[in-house]
């Protein structure tokens, strides 16, 4: 299928192959897990916490090869009944989850283990407490490090990524991160991509990808990223340190060389074979699923 495909077409089909639609098995599985976790937390804490999707599901950057489930569990500012301190919020949510799951404590999240056969699939529950009654800014507990509290805002994060206008580039580079086993955190990569493409939103996807990779290769030390929800209070320098930057620069250089030599197919491989017959069959099934179809017409001959 890819023999006659140019780079632009390749990237379009590649992105399509990475899409997870609402009725995909993967998303249904995520919804099922989220439902189970919410039920457990509601049993323990009743209606008090706000429980919803965070992460790529909410940001619209889910890709088939790199998706995790982030569930946020934020308590109202004045809920002293379920926990008095931020640390108690974190620990009480952990205890509730441990009644059903094996839980590993991460810096700000509680990771539920063994929920999927996929080794790189994670379910993280992020406990927190709203700063005020507006239920927007949130304090998260930090289980490690000197600083025990981090102020953040999920809505700002989601809006920053979802409305960035470069979500296709983010999706492709998330797959790139997974395929190259890069240690850079997804959130950090997203921020870097958005920063690098802030003046390149109208470029084609291929131009955007090449720009990001070229900047990573040539100017990685000049890239500054800030948490849009807390630009002064959340120091991301540790997550984007010299080691992370140098690896990104090296892999970006290698990727650009590959693209120059053999196109994006050289980077991401041949696309799954999708014969004309199987496309026709899939489209026909989709057409048969339309309950009240309309038919094309034209009021004059062209």
């Amino acid at each position, binding site marked *: 299928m890819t023999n006659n495909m140019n780079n632009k077409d390749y990237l379009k089909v590649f992105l399509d192959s990475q899409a997870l639609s609402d009725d995909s098995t993967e998303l249904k599985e995520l919804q099922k897990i989220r439902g189970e976790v919410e039920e457990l937390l509601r049993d323990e804490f009743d209606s008090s916490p706000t429980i919803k999707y965070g992460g790529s599901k909410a940001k619209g950057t889910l890709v088939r090869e790199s998706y995790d489930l982030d569930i946020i569990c934020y308590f109202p500012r004045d809920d002293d009944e379920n926990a008095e301190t931020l640390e108690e919020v974190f620990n009480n949510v952990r205890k509730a989850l441990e009644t059903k799951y094996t839980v590993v404590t991460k810096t700000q999240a509680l990771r539920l283990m063994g929920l999927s056969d996929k080794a790189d699939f994670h379910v993280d529950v992020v406990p927190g407490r709203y700063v005020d009654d507006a239920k927007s800014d949130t304090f998260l507990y930090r289980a490690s490090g000197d600083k025990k509290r981090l102020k953040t805002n999920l809505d700002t994060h989601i809006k920053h990524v979802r409305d960035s206008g470069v979500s296709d580039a983010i999706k492709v580079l998330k797959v790139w991160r997974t395929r190259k086993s890069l240690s850079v955190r997804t959130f950090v990569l997203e921020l870097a991509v958005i920063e690098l493409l802030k003046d390149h939103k109208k470029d084609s996807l291929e131009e955007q990808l090449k720009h990001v990779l070229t900047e990573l290769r040539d100017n990685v030390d000049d890239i500054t990223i800030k948490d849009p929800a807390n630009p002064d209070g959340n120091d991301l320098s540790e997550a984007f340190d010299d080691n992370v930057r140098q690896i990104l620069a090296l892999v970006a250089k290698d990727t650009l060389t590959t693209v120059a030599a053999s196109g994006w197919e050289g980077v991401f491989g041949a696309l799954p074979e999708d014969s004309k017959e199987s496309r026709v069959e899939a489209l026909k099934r989709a*057409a048969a699923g339309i309950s009240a179809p*309309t038919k094309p017409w034209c009021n004059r001959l062209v």
Partner: protein
Amino acid sequence: MSHRRPRHDQAQLDRLKNEVAQAFPELIASEEAGHLRFKGPFRIEYEGRRLDTYEIEIDLPQDYPDSQPIVRESAGRIPRAPDRHVNSDGALCICLPEEYWLHGFAERPLIDYISGPVRTYLLGNSLVELGAGWPHGEWAHGSEGLLQFYQEHLGPIDGRILRGYLDYLARPEVRGHWLCPCGSGKVVRKCHMPALRRLRDRIPPSVAAKSLSMLAASSK
């Protein structure tokens, strides 16, 4: 039922933008002098699989929802060829105005039109590109297509009889003692009144009048 509506005010435009942003976040709204346009990729997905992607523009005419949104494919993928049902100005001929009204899209949210007829058209085009033909068929161009549509609802009629029906549909009211347009010689109350009523309940007289003009022009 009343088929006339005022032009859009800002609250209506905001509601439409919000509605589309929720259901199709990749279709970006722009607004100029009260004219609303949505532009971006439209994905056709089914059974967890993305089947195709089109770059589209949707313009809302001033008299939307009385008139259908004007949809164009903006990447130059769909040729302006008769079998693709594209007007000379690039507007896709998504469906007949009568179908638009019969399915109630003038009364339903814009997103129903996008996920319904627009998706149906684009999905059909993908199949045509692959040589499979329009999955639900297609209307013939111009007045012949109108005739096909009304034949589905009124039985095997010719253009002359259809003009009689359209004349009745275009009137503000139809009296039961009038002669039925089918040519049976019976009064309409004792003949095709139920079918006429079903159509009149949905299709506004202005739409029938326009079709009547097209039919009359084509018969000259």
